[in-house]
């Protein structure tokens, strides 16, 4: 048997029962890799359930810094009897299978190309720990200790992590460290040289952080000056507002009074959540909400109101697998069309596509500026993979000189000084954006009646055809202005003569860059463009025009961004080909590579070299 032997380059997948406390042990493992300085991508694949069903935690360790899923599993830690067989058979040839040998493996487990590592987790745990509650949690810590030996992870990184985690309750640190030692000693005694995978300390990560996207969004909203949040719980966006609230409790408390400089209301449904945001924004406070697909459907009516009445609204959509209730705990990028064209009538909304926690932070703060500058909804298109998993990211930074862009508003003094009559929907600068006023601004000037009905320049109801038409057309002028303000794409031309270009966005980015690197090594240099916003800028159209073939890589069934590219820029369907992953798991580099090979009629690379052995 050729066992897999690699340093800082493997995929390890933990199979647990959900609700059993495995998350903390698996997290401890992932953080240890991170603290060893090695780029790591942990992905939580959990069921829509509280307790008792299978859950997987797939950790990609990658020296070269590819942060997407690769495809395939090199090492399985199989601690869930329900999925033991599946976990065994999913392993790549030459892989490693760690299981709880307190119970024998069934005879059907007969592969001769897999190294089996039995650690009697239950027996070891019960011998050492009497408390049944502790047992459940510590059993998983034991296998982390075993992995420390098997993968050559510096043990002190683990003990330091434990001590840091339990800094306020040091009594809990002790049993955890004991559990680690138990696992470590057993593995060392029984499997001294079994595992060919190793972790070596590097400084590849520099001062990178490990953070989940939802927390980054919540923090971005704090820094971006949001003071009101209306929200409704839904997987996977709940933790956005929970993070916002946690940071607010730390950073938005008035010193003298102990009162809060923030209003966070859990609404009765998603409609009310967005209503709260719109009411607050209308009245001069920065506000946002977070939801997922089903919430977008519910919020569509209010999105139309915000679009037509031109009220800022920031909305975070942490997308999950649809349609309808779909798979609440699986990832997808399938709300793109719903969000871009949310609501009946002719509407268009600004979309932002972050790809990592740093962009989650930055783009949320930017969204609050953009929404007020453009007086319209701005939807941040995150997804479950980005929002709920930990990602390696460049550290966050804030320019202390930055001032919030409150957009075009008139103060009492400015109203007093105006020579001509002010109208809420009068385009005075030609950019399609009009001046608004906040309630209470002036005793006799500036009041107007906001409405979702057709309105003239003074916000009075009108059915006059020319006025109605002119108003709608002005919104297109505003859309063109938006084009100049939203984040531009990240374009990389690696070979000017190559007529093939890749287009992708959001979390697809990481696996796409890895696929590109693989083709690069084979002498095929592909050009790429990572789209970061809608509306699409000139640069997007130029890139597409400059290539003969464009592959649009995304995570939905119907090629939604491709549809929008054709729709908005009159691009021929024949020019844009889709590479689509919509199985609910984050897209892998293997998948993208295979699809490109197929589309370009390239002979596939052999199994071993496609996983970077050649590097």
């Amino acid at each position, binding site marked *: 048997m050729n066992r897999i032997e690699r340093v800082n380059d493997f995929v390890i997948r933990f199979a647990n029962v959900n609700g059993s406390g495995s998350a903390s042990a698996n997290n401890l493992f992932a953080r240890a890799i991170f*603290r060893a300085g090695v780029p790591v991508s942990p992905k939580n694949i959990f069921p829509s359930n509280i307790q008792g069903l299978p859950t997987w935690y797939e950790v990609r360790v990658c020296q070269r810094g590819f942060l997407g899923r690769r495809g395939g599993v090199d090492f399985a830690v199989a601690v869930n009897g329900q999925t033991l067989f599946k976990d065994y058979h999913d392993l790549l040839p030459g892989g490693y299978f760690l299981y709880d040998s307190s119970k024998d493996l069934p005879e059907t487990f007969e592969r001769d190309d897999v190294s089996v590592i039995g650690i009697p987790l239950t027996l070891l745990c019960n011998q050492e720990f009497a408390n049944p509650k502790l047992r459940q949690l510590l059993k998983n810590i034991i296998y982390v200790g075993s992995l420390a030996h098997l993968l050559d992870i510096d043990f002190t990184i683990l003990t330091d992590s434990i001590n840091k985690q339990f800094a306020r309750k040091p009594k809990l640190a002790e049993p955890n460290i004991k559990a680690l030692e138990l696992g470590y000693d057993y593995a060392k005694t029984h499997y001294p040289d079994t595992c060919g995978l190793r972790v070596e300390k590097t400084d590849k990560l520099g*001062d*990178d*952080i*490990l953070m989940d996207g939802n927390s980054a969004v919540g*923090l971005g909203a*704090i820094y971006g*000056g949001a*003071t*009101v949040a*209306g929200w409704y719980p839904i997987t996977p966006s709940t933790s956005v507002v929970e993070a916002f609230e946690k940071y607010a409790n730390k*950073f*938005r408390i*008035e010193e003298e*009074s102990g*009162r*809060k*400089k*923030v*209003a*966070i*209301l859990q*609404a*009765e*449904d998603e*409609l*009310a*959540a*967005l*209503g*709260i*945001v*719109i*009411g*607050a*924004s*209308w*009245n*001069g406070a920065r*506000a946002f909400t977070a939801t997922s697909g089903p919430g977008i459907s519910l919020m569509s*009516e*209010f999105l139309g109101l915000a679009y037509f009445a031109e009220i800022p609204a920031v909305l975070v959509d942490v997308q999950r697998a649809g349609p309808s209730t779909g798979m609440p705990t699986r990832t997808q990028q399938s709300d793109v069309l719903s969000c871009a064209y949310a609501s009946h009538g002719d509407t268009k909304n600004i979309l932002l596509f972050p790809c990592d926690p740093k962009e989650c932070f930055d783009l949320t703060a930017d969204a609050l500026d953009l929404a007020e500058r453009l007086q319209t909804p701005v939807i941040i298109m995150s997804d479950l993979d980005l929002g709920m998993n930990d990602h390696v990211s460049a*550290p*966050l*930074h*804030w320019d*202390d000189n*930055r*001032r*919030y862009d409150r957009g075009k508003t008139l103060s009492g003094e400015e109203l007093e000084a105006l020579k001509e009559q002010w109208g809420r929907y009068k385009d005075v600068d030609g950019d399609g954006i009009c001046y608004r*006023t*906040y*309630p*209470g601004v002036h*005793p006799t000037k500036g*009041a107007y*009646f*906001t*409405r*979702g009905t057709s309105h003239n320049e003074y916000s009075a109801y009108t059915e006059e055809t020319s006025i109605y038409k002119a108003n709608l057309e002005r919104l297109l002028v505003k859309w063109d202005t938006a084009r100049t303000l939203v984040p531009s794409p990240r374009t990389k031309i690696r070979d000017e003569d190559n007529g093939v270009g890749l287009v992708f966005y959001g979390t697809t980015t990481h696996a796409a860059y890895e696929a590109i690197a693989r083709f690069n090594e084979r002498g095929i240099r592909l050009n790429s463009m990572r789209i970061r916003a809608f509306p699409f800028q000139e640069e997007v159209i130029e890139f597409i025009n400059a290539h003969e073939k464009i592959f649009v890589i995304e995570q939905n069934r119907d090629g939604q961004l491709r549809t929008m590219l054709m729709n908005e820029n009159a691009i021929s369907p024949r020019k844009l080909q889709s590479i689509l992953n919509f199985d609910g798991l984050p897209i892998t580099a293997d998948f993208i590579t295979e699809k490109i090979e197929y589309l370009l009629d390239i002979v596939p690379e052999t199994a071993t070299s496609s996983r970077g052995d050649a590097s």
Partner: protein
Amino acid sequence: MSFQVPSFRHPRQAKNDAGYTRRDYEGAPSTLCAGCGHDSATNAIIQACFELGIEPHRVAKMSGIGCSSKTPAYFLNKSHGFNSVHGRMPSIATGANMANRDLLYIGISGDGDTASIGMGQFAHALRRNLNLNYICMNNGCYGLTKGQDSATADKGSAGKKGTPNPYASIDLCELAIELGASYVARGFSGDKKQLVPLIKGAFAHSGLAFIDVISPCVTFNNTATSTKSYEYVREHIEATNTFDFIPLQQEILTDYPEGTTQEVTMHDGSKIHLHKVENTEDVTNRLKAVNRLESEKEKGRLLTGLLYVNQDIQETHDIINTTLRPLNTLQEADLCPGNDVLQKINEGLR
């Protein structure tokens, strides 16, 4: 409906304590049907605001969709207004209130807007005790869409369409008390004398003040067979009690014989003196309030007046403990923790 409203006003038109004339509280000419109850209700709002000396620009008027939701355009044209979407005025009002706790919020809705599509938001604005003056102009039908029954139409009542309503009706006042409301009143657009003090009391109340204003629809639901017609209402009306509203600034000038009044002190210090018809009445007692409503219903009477008031309750901002400074006045110094803090956060993520 008036096509032209004369702009002439008496040169010595009275000014209130804030220096405004009644004209300053008016709005655009109404486009509602001639004789519409909503126009009278609107007038009562104007009267209450004028007499209290409220500064118009310190008011925000919110509404949903429907004939009644059009009325904010017909009063307080110096106030910002927001005509939102059907049934969703409370959430917009909630957000607006969160942004600036210091304005006076008037939320206008109708029975269709509130008791059907708006039922959820109605209940939760009450539950949170949002500091909002919620006025429902109740005519038992959907006027703007040509006369369908609403959920407050009484069983057996027949409007212009002629078919009796087969379903049970929703009593918004009783429901409001049930849901935890702290100021509940019912008025009638045809009785401004009763309605104006009810509105003043609502303004003084800190929390959600709900007023159900029976406001007949002359076009679609004013038939002899309708229980929301002018005729029917006048014949079946009952009042809890009359009351005087005494704003904080004013002295109490009337002497009340002992035992005939109940005094309620509002959050802003103003007082309501209720003239008790029977000694056993107590509108601060929730159980008695509901029982009174039910017993009048049994007699086929429509109970109006101040139905229930409870001053022992906190409004939303107090519940969530927000700063006394309106959130929309806070700037970067208050809101942004700065880069040093961010670098510490980065440290914690390594």
